[in-house]
């Protein structure tokens, strides 16, 4: 990979991590973020590497652990943060909150709170592009826990029966809330589930952004060639609890530390940049401090943004239809 690209990815991954760390503080220390908060820390390489492989017009849709994807598609940290703080300047005007971030302009359709449901929406996004005859692909993200719900089965089957251009991206972080994949699933490899639908699949090191990028690029290319759905099982790990308030009794600190110390996606990329691309430690620190400054700005912006006016509550329940109604 080009040094410039790797630096860009590094910047994005650092931004996502700092963003999540600030959210954690804003929730736990300052009480400025409410509701559920599912942090992406540890999984940054997946959103950055996969979305790095998409071209404009390709669809992105994911679950509630969506801050990383929102930032990777190009939403401004300040507007995402404003959303989490329930402000009018938030990406959905304070309506959706953490779990329901979205941007039509960036063909980022959300952000969905109901486990598995968005896989059926992804099937439809891909169907629409096939129907219109474009070469746009759909990137759909979900956790390994979501593969046990009916939506997964119906969506994967339909995507293969119609050979839809969708890349199923499983972020396998081993746990669905507190339940390990071994406890919840008859098979412990999502690629083995893919076989049950004759869907081409691949296990990918989700902590290696380059590997993630290359696998995704191949998968998207296959979709564009009309080869139908592809599944990527990204092996990863979430460092924080499932959501704020998770006392994470279901896993050992050893397990967590092992991932964090040996597999951290940002550390791995930073080493690569320094060892293979002549980037200096200082350049990396510079990026980090720039991100910190950007985050300070974002917090300030969100803080100062007004809350949505009460009389906007009834807007958009039903969109206006030109003509008849």
């Amino acid at each position, binding site marked *: 990979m080009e040094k410039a690209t790797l630096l860009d990815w590094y910047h994005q991954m650092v931004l996502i991590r700092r963003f999540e760390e600030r959210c954690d503080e804003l929730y736990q220390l300052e009480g400025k973020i409410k509701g559920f908060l599912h942090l992406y820390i540890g999984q940054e390489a997946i959103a950055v590497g996969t979305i790095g492989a998409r071209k404009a017009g390709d669809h992105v849709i994911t679950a509630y652990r969506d801050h990383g994807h929102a930032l990777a598609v190009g939403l401004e940290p300040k507007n995402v943060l404003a959303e989490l703080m329930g402000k009018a300047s938030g990406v959905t005007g304070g309506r959706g909150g953490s779990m329901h971030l979205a941007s*039509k302009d960036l063909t980022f359709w959300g952000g969905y709170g109901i486990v598995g449901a968005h896989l059926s929406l992804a099937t439809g996004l891909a169907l629409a592009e096939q129907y219109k005859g474009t070469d746009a692909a759909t990137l759909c993200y979900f956790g390994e826990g979501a593969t046990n719900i009916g939506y997964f089965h119906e969506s994967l089957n339909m995507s293969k029966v119609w050979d839809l251009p969708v890349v199923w991206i499983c972020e396998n972080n081993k746990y669905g809330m507190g339940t390990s994949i071994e406890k919840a699933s008859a098979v412990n490899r999502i690629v083995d589930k893919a076989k049950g639908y004759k869907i081409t699949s691949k296990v990918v090191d989700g902590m290696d952004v380059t590997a993630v990028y290359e696998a995704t690029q191949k998968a998207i290319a296959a979709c564009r060639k009309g080869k139908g759905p592809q599944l990527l099982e990204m092996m990863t790990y979430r460092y924080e609890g499932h959501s704020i308030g998770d006392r994470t009794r279901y896993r050992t600190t050893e397990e967590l530390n092992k991932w964090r110390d040996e597999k951290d996606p940002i550390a791995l990329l930073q080493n690569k940049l320094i060892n293979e691309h002549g980037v200096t430690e200082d350049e990396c620190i510079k990026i980090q401090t720039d991100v910190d400054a950007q985050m300070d700005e974002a917090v300030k912006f969100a803080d100062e943004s007004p809350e949505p006016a009460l009389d906007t509550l009834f807007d958009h329940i039903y969109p206006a239809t030109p003509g008849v109604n």
Partner: protein
Amino acid sequence: MPRLTLREAITEAIREEMQRDESVFIMGEEVGEWGGTYAVTKGFLDEFGAARVRDTPISEMVIAGAAVGAALAGTRPIAEFMTINFAFVAFDAIVNHAAKMSHMFNGQFTCPLVFRAPGGGGKQLGATHSHTPDVIFAHFPGLKVVSPATPYDAKGLLKAAIRDEAPVMFIEPVPLYTSPRVRDEVPEGEYTVPIGVSDKKREGTDVTIVTYGEGLHVSLAAAAELSKEGIEAEIIDLRSLQPLDTSLSVESFKKTNKAVVVEFGHKTYGIGAELVARLQEEAFDYLDAPIKRVAQFDVPAPYAGKLEKHALPDAAKVITAVKEIL
């Protein structure tokens, strides 16, 4: 003007809209090769091809969810549930996804799709296959819910539903599909009937009957009988359950001061309850007698013919209800 059955009117609406707009397609179980379980899309596969008339696996969750996704991405899907009873399996996709898209994402997205759902009982299909659960869909803001009672309304409302930017649950009363009693004049070609607007189906002075779907026809039959005794019922057809237009019902009630609500769904927590609440809220001073409800008894639908009929509204029950308040 050709006289069409309700089913023929629905077929014509879909055909015209698919001819008019390339972005409209239909998907569902047996809509293609079979021509639709109730033959609504007979011949469509040949006319429009397999890309626009899509047979699906038995997968209601993804049929509904894929319709949502396809609508977001710029097409206008018609997703058919073979019957409304199977929409329960897709309930989450309908009420927690389709219905939420516009508001939850702050108006960024629209989700222009139609869920077609043939519904209703009285066909001796047993409890799992005989629901008229319209009210539970109409309870969720964001989803529009429409149910026509006449061929004219069916064609016009379905064309409006397909063009609407909001997701529309279009509930088709199967017992009316081919009923000669329901056959009616339907203009060829272009016209629509607005969603969210009720309609007066009979003029009267003595009592207001508010109803929709199958209820309209038992109400009309009852009104004809009552008329022989000099009792003139005014009949309002809601046509849409969400948004709910009570203007004509209130206006009529202010004239007659008496009302009966007739529906084929279960009585408790049904459509009628909301109408009663609205009428007494909006026309309290005109209440001369309790507002009556004629509805399906609160019991799962049995298979046995007479037993099932016993649980459903009919003209006699409407007549009794009217006479109780006159």
